[in-house]
């Protein structure tokens, strides 16, 4: 039965309880009007991804009903969602790297002649869609050879090729530079003008304000409210998201900069496959400062951190810590020299998931007293150590024996932070320290990083989140294609756009200018 409705998609009283008892959605009512840009915001774990997975047929709701164009539907698979005109662009792209863009666009629904792929037709289709919606791509380039922004456009084209009227974009700007974000927003507006509807998942409130017509806020598995974007401020949205006032503006004492702690000179790194990822990188990090590294991911930041930490070998150049050469030293020697490292991939490099909190807190010092005496582990000392750090870093866990795998992302990161900061480092490398961490824990992590800085630790902060770098760093170093393109003092008048030009490589400082500031 079709009923008159102003909504193209309506989800009524949706609840989702996972088999392990987690309630991801509770009585959620979510409705989208045709031709609108509807933002869905909320902290990590608030339930927005689950809700969209239900709409896209990747999860089944425990209860509730879905209506598409007024008709009740049950969506069992992405295939059925696509048939209903719902398309989704996932956060981690669903592309086949060695296939060309045209092949990726038509994958699963290829134009064929006598059962053989009609590649010419695939290229032609891609070209037409690309022109029609202003999503510029090179149809015959393999996906692995094109930049992230273009890969995202390929994902959107894929959905359009399958006849999507409603496009779900899952945190589409997470991997883009500010300029690429502008381009994406222009493309989204053009899509809406040609009759499409866009659901925009995000937790970046500034972007939500800039692009959306209406916004739905989720918190704790519930949909708090749906409002017209023009009628709310960013602060109001933030309050709705967390249920309390949160300012991720960090209060920092003026910097007391000391001696150079980390000195990196002419660092080169080449991957096994022969790709040059670091090209003559030179800079210092001083005691008592936070040096923020900004840049689109994949421009050498990961490699820089891992070369310094001793996890990869530099092809040339030098890394010195307080005058001591630690170039290509094994990780243990690097740590003993005074380097602490919060790795970007917490789950593989930061913690041993199946081991306990107490064990994770001593992996870098288990062989030393008081944890080992006479070649034997001292369980009492290990437990006492864990108890103290759990308390000091407000890790939400029953006790030190709980496996790290049972913790939330934020608490897991606190375990890493506790271990690294309690090693009394001279240099703290924090790579993506708040990725996948909720706002409460992020705040705590920010405080701890600033406290370390105030205590004279040199902090090297690498983050894909530009606002994080801007709120924490004293100086900002921008990386593009393995080079430093700028070193900027983080003054209040510095804007995201200004940094964005350097991130994209549109502008770059001269070598002399960088050398003078780095």
């Amino acid at each position, binding site marked *: 039965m079709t009923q008159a409705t102003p909504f193209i998609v309506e989800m009524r009283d949706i609840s989702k309880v996972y088999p392990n008892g987690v309630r991801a959605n509770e009585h959620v009512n979510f409705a989208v009007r045709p031709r609108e840009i509807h933002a869905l915001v909320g902290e990590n774990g608030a339930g927005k991804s689950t809700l969209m997975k239900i709409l896209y047929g990747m999860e089944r709701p425990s209860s509730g009903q879905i209506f598409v164009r007024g008709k009740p539907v049950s969506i069992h698979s*992405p295939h059925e969602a696509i048939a209903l005109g719902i398309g989704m662009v996932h956060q981690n792209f669903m592309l*086949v790297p060695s296939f060309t863009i045209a092949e990726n666009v038509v994958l699963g*629904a290829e134009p064929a002649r006598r059962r053989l792929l009609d590649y010419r037709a695939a290229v032609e289709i891609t070209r037409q869609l690309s022109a029609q919606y202003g999503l510029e791509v090179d149809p015959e380039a393999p996906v692995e050879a094109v930049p992230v922004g273009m890969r995202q456009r390929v994902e959107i084209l*894929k959905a359009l090729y399958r006849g999507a009227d409603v496009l779900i974009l899952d945190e589409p700007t997470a991997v883009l530079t500010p300029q690429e974000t502008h381009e994406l927003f222009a493309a989204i507006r053009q899509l809406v003008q040609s009759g499409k509807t866009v659901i925009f998942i995000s937790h970046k409130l500034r972007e939500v304000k800039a692009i959306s017509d209406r916004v739905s806020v989720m918190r704790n598995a519930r949909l708090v409210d749906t409002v017209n974007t023009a009628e709310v401020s960013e602060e109001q949205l933030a309050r709705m998201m967390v249920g309390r006032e949160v300012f991720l503006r960090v209060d920092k004492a003026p910097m007391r900069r000391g001696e150079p702690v980390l000195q990196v000179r002419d660092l080169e790194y*080449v*991957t*096994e496959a022969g790709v040059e990822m670091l090209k*003559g990188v030179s800079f210092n990090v001083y005691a008592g400062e936070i040096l923020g590294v900004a840049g689109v991911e994949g421009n050498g930041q990961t490699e820089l951190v891992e070369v310094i930490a001793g996890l990869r070998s530099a092809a040339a150049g030098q890394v010195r810590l307080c005058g001591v050469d630690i170039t290509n030293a094994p990780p243990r020697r690097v740590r003993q020299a005074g380097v602490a490292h919060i790795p970007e991939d917490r789950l593989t490099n930061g913690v041993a998931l199946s081991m306990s909190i107490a064990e994770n807190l001593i992996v870098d010092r288990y062989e030393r007293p008081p944890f080992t005496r006479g070649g034997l582990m001292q369980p009492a000392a290990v437990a006492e150590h864990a108890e103290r750090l759990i308390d000091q870093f407000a890790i939400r866990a029953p006790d030190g024996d709980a496996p790290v795998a049972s913790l939330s992302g934020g608490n897991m990161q606190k375990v890493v932070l506790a271990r690294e900061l309690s090693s009394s480092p001279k240099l703290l490398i924090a790579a993506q320290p708040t990725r996948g961490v909720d706002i409460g824990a992020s705040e705590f992590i920010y405080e701890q990083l600033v406290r370390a800085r105030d205590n004279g630790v040199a902090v090297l902060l690498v983050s894909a989140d530009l606002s994080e770098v801007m709120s924490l760093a004293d100086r900002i170093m921008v990386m593009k294609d393995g080079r430093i393109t700028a070193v900027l003092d983080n003054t209040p008048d510095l804007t995201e756009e200004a940094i964005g030009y350097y991130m994209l490589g549109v502008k770059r400082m001269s070598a002399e200018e960088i050398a003078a500031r780095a």
Partner: protein
Amino acid sequence: MEAISVIFSVAFVAAVLRVSTPLILPALGGLISELGGVINIALEGIMLVAACAGVLVSVWTQSAWLGAIAGVALGMFIALVLAFFHLNLKADLILAAIALNLLASGGTIFVVYLVTGDKSSTSRLVSGQMPFLSDFIPSVRELGDLGRLLDQNILTYAAFVLTALVALFLYRTRTGIHLRAVGENPEAARSVGINVRRMQYLALLLSGMLAALGGVYLSMGYVKFFARDMTGGRGFIALAAIYLGARKPLGVLIAALVFGAAEALSIQLGNLRVPTQLVQIIPYFATLAALVIYAVAQRQRALARQRAFLQSRAARQV
């Protein structure tokens, strides 16, 4: 020198084609499974079972073709078992395949012993052989050297035709493209409605079919009997050929021919006065050497790029 003249003879080229066949066929099968993301380590066991079943069924039915069909069917059944264990029961693919290889080695001897009372081979039985070109066109025999070159088993011809068909399948058919997409990014494939498990079943079944053809050729073309462990590691050499051939059908064909040439050489040298133990290691040594050379070459290329980059940068700075 004697050895040189041997290598450049027509007989030698004919021998290369003969001994390469049981490498090309399983290598093509392995390639399909590799590109589908479910590398089939059980090629060796599947060949062995198919070789054994082919001989026994041909004895029983007095038909080489029925024997071959039975061998291929049983080979595909074993691939199906492997697929079921891995894809449905979530067993580790490598371990399950190793188990099947061991089962094939022991199981074939057991069956042969039950049937013949002999634990080493079926040479006492009169078994069938797949036809040669001269069985269809007798005049081939009168062509002299060329005739000897062309008078190959139909499975040898099949190996070359199948190389082209596998390439066509993998790169031009929708199913083949889906199979490659599944192997490279299963999540992406699933998200566009491709049934990942079905594609991986298909990849393993096709690999089983091609490996079984290789096995059937061994016992019903290359020779006319089944012998204990007669595959002699060809299923593993075929795996090496996949990577040496850069995971492309034509590359795999060439790699398999190179390994075949090494084996043919060892056979020819066996007629000369060279210690047989030394000669017998040639195909295995060639496999190892080829893989080492391949790895070193890749590394050299990476280092050369690195040096070229550092030099060009130094030049720019001057």
